[in-house]
């Protein structure tokens, strides 16, 4: 009787141990393959900020252009055999398994959504401006407006799809593409020309002259 009870107890312990092992292994597999490791809990170490250069500038910004562009880099498998092999390799890699399971024809894909801010205006440090009273008028000679700043930051950059392994220089290439696209949009919208109207309004507000103001660009 006692022997039977001990035997049943042993079986119970063994079964409980098996269940515990299954639960632990299941949890590890879930964490390794399916859990969201988005890096939201990362904490960087506190390192000092180095001031490398301080520059005195004189830039009058009159147009702020906010743009959002999508940039993409895509590589496809060339043959079906390559596709099968590639997807099997992805299945073996915990970081890429989710892309391998769909077994698509995409070998690598990196899609980014980049938000940026472009500032247009005139640079009065690099180029001179003159104010000359002439025939009862105040003639202001200014340089033509130009693109003065392009603000791209990691905070405004989203990696939307990352399928396959990508190098830093490849991400930088896409960022450059985003930058070029934004500049092209600014050109298309003729923002350098549009920067003149608010510039003239701003100067008239600053000058407060009784004489008529004439603004010329060189």
């Amino acid at each position, binding site marked *: 009787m006692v022997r039977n009870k001990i035997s049943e107890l042993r079986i119970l312990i063994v079964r409980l141990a098996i269940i515990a092992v299954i639960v632990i292994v299941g949890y590890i597999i879930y*964490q390794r393959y399916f859990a969201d490791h*988005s*890096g939201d809990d*990362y*904490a*960087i*170490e506190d390192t*000092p*900020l*180095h*001031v*490398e*250069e*301080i520059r*005195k*500038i*004189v*830039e*009058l*910004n*009159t*147009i702020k*252009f906010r*743009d*959002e562009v999508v940039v*993409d880099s*895509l590589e496809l498998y060339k043959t*079906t055999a390559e596709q099968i092999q590639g997807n*099997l390799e992805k299945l073996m*890699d915990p*970081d890429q398994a989710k892309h391998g399971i*769909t*077994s*698509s*024809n995409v070998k690598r*894909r990196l899609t980014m959504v980049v938000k940026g*801010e472009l*500032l247009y205006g005139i640079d009065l440090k690099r180029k001179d401006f003159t*104010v000359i009273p002439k025939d009862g008028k105040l003639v202001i000679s200014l340089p033509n407006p130009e693109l003065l*700043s392009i*603000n*791209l*930051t*990691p905070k405004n*950059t989203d*990696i939307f799809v*990352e399928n396959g392994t*990508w190098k*830093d220089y490849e*991400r*930088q290439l896409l960022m*450059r593409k985003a930058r070029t*696209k934004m500049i092209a949009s600014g050109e298309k919208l003729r923002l350098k020309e549009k920067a003149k109207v*608010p510039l003239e309004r*701003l100067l008239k*507000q*600053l*000058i*407060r*002259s009784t004489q008529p103001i004439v603004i010329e660009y060189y």
Partner: protein
Amino acid sequence: MTRMKQTITCLIVILALLSSCGTDDTPVSNKEIFEIRTIGTLSTSEYTVGKIIKLNDEGEWYHWGDRKILISCKAKIKAGVNLNNLKAEDIKVTGKKIEIQLPPAEIISFEMNPDQIKTEMVDVSGFRGGFSQQEKNKILRLGEKSIREDMKELNILNDAETNAIVFLTDFYKNLGFEEIIIHGTKQDKRTTNIDR
């Protein structure tokens, strides 16, 4: 046992063959979202700063090994004054004398050039994988946040205000004014917004 292995291999190959017909190569849309705003800011000071972003990812108990990364980056920050905030009563003209109350200095732009972001070192041990671009971007965001916080300690706003006063004094001298008085803004009245 051998039979079971063969069956599993066959199943994987069939699954791969069946799903290999799937395509996911839709090109991204070229539609762009933009906003144009008229501003009137005078940038007068530019700081270039550098930072080393250090991360030691020890992971969870089920991850054997750890990952370390060092990324160096640079940020270019411009500060100045928003001349659109100048109200009529802020400029007083009496003959050849002009008195101006300058709006508070603020951060005008913040740029982290992607070409000046460099992964200096990556160390991965145990069964850990390398850092993906998505993870690196998240680490860079933390670096950006840290730079923006550290910026509060810099003298950039004081410099911007001083330079703006110098520029406007010359500007009004050119216009023929003989006495130019420009008042700055007290530090506690400046905006604390660093999220430009």
